[in-house]
């Protein structure tokens, strides 16, 4: 042991008291290695050393800033941009972005999004059915051609002695249901718009919430509304929930100037997905800036208001939720998750979070989903609109009335 100690101090380090257990690899630490088990103190020394080093090395790190609204980049085609900035000959004077008082100014800068019009499906009545998510792919492929008749129920074996007609195994449900009328309508509309998400838009075009409808202005407003709704459909947190209608207008011209254009990558984006672009985030950000709130935080949601929103939701959907059909179903509590658009329409299909394989419980789960569908859309009172983030996603525990 002593040999070891002497050897380790052979090189020119500051002289330290000899320690029999000194570690060759860490002579400077020998001072701490008094105990026969060097592990703990060694570890402590190293940790403290690292902490000190880090303290001094990192002290000029920037402190975190308040969360900022992401500046959205709306990418549009050159030609479209020119049209936007060109403005309209007969239009009224475009008001500055900050001024959000009058509503009719909202519509002005948008006329040229004419191609969006094509993408907006005028409400085709048969299109309204809600698709379940899994069905969308099938719906996709069937669109162009007229699928023949629903494949006839597989003629299963009959067999059986006379008095007992034997039920055949259930016909496998087909994924697509060719309704001739519906197909034609979809065919012409769908081509520019492959994504299966059009449900919310389709529903909302006929009912834009804002009343202003200067004749040619109609489309832009609807487009704006589509943009807004589709954006909120995809946006998660962080989105400002300011008055969306007012936000439409101010975003307009000034905002577009801030956009980057990458001509190479925009073309397909615009042509196919304009109605669903996330880009409209910019509107919110700019509207917030216009309002002078530097950090763009949403208006405060008080507990009282939360309670009111919850009560309103419960009362609304409770109307469609019925007592159990049988005694077994009472123990099972279906939990349904669903999302709403800003106008209170269903976004996508409601989802059962706790499905059951048992027959009665499965039926009960279906009734729960049907109840949510039946009571949709839910009208949104104006005072709830800013708190879209709070009521965007809801889970309902559908219980018995005990």
């Amino acid at each position, binding site marked *: 042991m002593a040999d070891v100690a002497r050897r380790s101090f052979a090189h020119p380090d500051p002289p330290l008291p000899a320690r029999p257990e000194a570690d060759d690899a860490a002579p400077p630490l020998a001072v701490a290695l008094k105990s026969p088990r060097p592990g703990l103190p060694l570890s402590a020394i190293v940790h403290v050393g690292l902490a000190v080093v880090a303290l001094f090395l990192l002290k000029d790190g920037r402190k975190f800033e308040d969360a900022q609204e992401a500046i959205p980049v709306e990418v549009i085609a050159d030609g479209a941009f020119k049209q936007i900035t060109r403005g309209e000959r007969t239009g009224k004077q475009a008001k500055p972005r900050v001024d959000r008082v009058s509503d009719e100014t909202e519509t002005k800068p948008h006329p040229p999004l004419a191609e969006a019009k094509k993408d907006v499906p005028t409400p085709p009545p048969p299109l309204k059915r809600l*698709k379940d998510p899994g069905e969308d792919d099938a719906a996709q492929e069937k669109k162009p051609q007229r699928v023949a008749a*629903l494949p006839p129920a597989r003629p299963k074996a*009959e067999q059986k002695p006379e008095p007992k007609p034997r039920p055949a195994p259930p016909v496998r*449900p087909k994924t697509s249901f060719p*309704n001739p009328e519906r197909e034609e309508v979809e065919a012409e509309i769908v081509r520019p718009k492959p994504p299966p998400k059009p449900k919310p838009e389709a529903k909302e075009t006929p009912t834009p919430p804002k009343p202003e409808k200067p004749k040619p202005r109609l489309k832009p407003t609807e487009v704006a509304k589509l943009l807004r709704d589709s954006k909120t459909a995809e946006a998660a947190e962080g989105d400002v929930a300011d008055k969306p209608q007012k936000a439409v207008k101010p975003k307009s011209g000034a905002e577009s100037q801030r956009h980057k254009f990458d001509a190479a990558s925009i073309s397909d984006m615009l042509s196919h997905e304009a109605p669903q672009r996330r880009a409209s985030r910019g509107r919110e950000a700019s509207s917030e800036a216009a309002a002078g709130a530097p950090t763009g935080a949403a208006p405060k949601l008080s507990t009282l208001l939360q309670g009111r929103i919850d009560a309103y939701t419960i009362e609304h959907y409770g109307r469609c939720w019925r007592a159990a059909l049988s005694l077994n179903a009472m123990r099972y509590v279906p*939990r349904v998750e669903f999302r709403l658009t800003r106008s209170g329409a269903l976004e996508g299909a409601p989802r059962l979070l706790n499905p059951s394989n048992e027959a009665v419980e*499965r039926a009960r789960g279906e009734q729960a989903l049907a109840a949510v569908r039946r009571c949709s859309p839910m009208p949104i009172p104006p005072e709830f609109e800013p708190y879209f983030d709070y009521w965007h996603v809801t889970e309902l*525990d559908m219980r018995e009335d005990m």
Partner: protein
Amino acid sequence: MTLFTRRSALPLLASAALAPTLARGRVLDLRAGGGFRPIEIAVTPFSGDETATLVTQVIQANFGRSVFLHPVEGLPNTPLDPDHAPDFDVYRVQGAQFVLTGRAQRSADGRLKTEFRLYDAAGGEQVAGQQFVTETGNARRVAHLVSDAVFTRLTGEKGFFDTRIVFVDETGPKDRRRKRLAIMDQDGANVRYLTRGEDLVVTPRFSPSSQDVTYMSFGADGEPKVLLMNIESSQREVVGNFPGMTFSPRFSPDGQKVVMSLSQGAETNLYTMDLRSRSTTRLTDTAAIDTSPCYSPDGSQIVFESDRGGSQQIYVMGAHGGDARRISFGGGRYSTPVWSPKGDYIAFTKQDKGNFAIGVMKTNGSDERILTEGFHNEGPTFAPNGLFLMFFREGAGASGAKIHMVDVFGRSEFPVPTPSWASDPAWGPLQD
């Protein structure tokens, strides 16, 4: 509730990993309110030949009496092509949640081919579809099978439409009543008489297999005999002569035994008899009147009526006898208890201050609920799915009784049509 094992932790970890990416919403408690409302179903006219019209009508009538489903009214009268999905908007506007389409057609070999498709009107997807082949004369039966399939798919419960009722048909003046054993479909169709009416017959009971019926017959000498009849062949055999028997025996769930009450003097006690060996075993031995026994669906217990406590009440005991515990405690006299095929409820007749009521209670006697009251209601019998009861009612001043049907929640009641007066219904099992 679940053991915290590595396996059970995996979904927890997985969901934790996913959590930041899923925007979860707030969770609200929703209580079912506004009372009960049935599921609205649009029964579209089946396409095909004239049997399609009959099948459609039978299905619509079935659903109209099902309480849990309600057929949407005011639908267009033209049959739909069942190979194509219907235009759901038409039916959604009428409030339908499900749409039923189908076809019934005789095929070239003279058999009847029937198929149906059931759609969810909100999503438009098919949720059920089946096909049946049978003899042409069986159109009503196929309609019942379709009704059962749809009922089961929508409620998760077993159906009850493809069942038959055995009952006592009564004709003639009250003092010279002619009573015949009869069988019919649960909707009153296809009535067939099983006896000729020379002997008085009472209290028929179905066997679990639905092929046999026991009943009591009083011959000219007035002595009751217990008979066992095969429905298809109408062949009968005498199970035994049982002087003093007032109620017909009931089958055990396995069909091997019957349980009955026999009177000796002032006492009436319960006995079981093995149908093969004909050996009898005495179950109760009290100085009271123990009668009207009924097995539980698992065969482990027997519910019966007894006045051992001083008044007619309902008791439950093990199937091999032994201690019996009272489960009826409301005011009044309880009788004719029957055990639900689902095992959860016991139905009974209750007499209180001159009123007769049919009710149900849980098997421990709690949650008693009266389903119907009137001048004279008696003799409940459960549907095989445990959701409905039939009983017979004689209105005040009427010359006879009629059969009625009610659901176990007491929401709705329907008369069951019979050719004449009818009593003592016994609801048979689902035919396969």
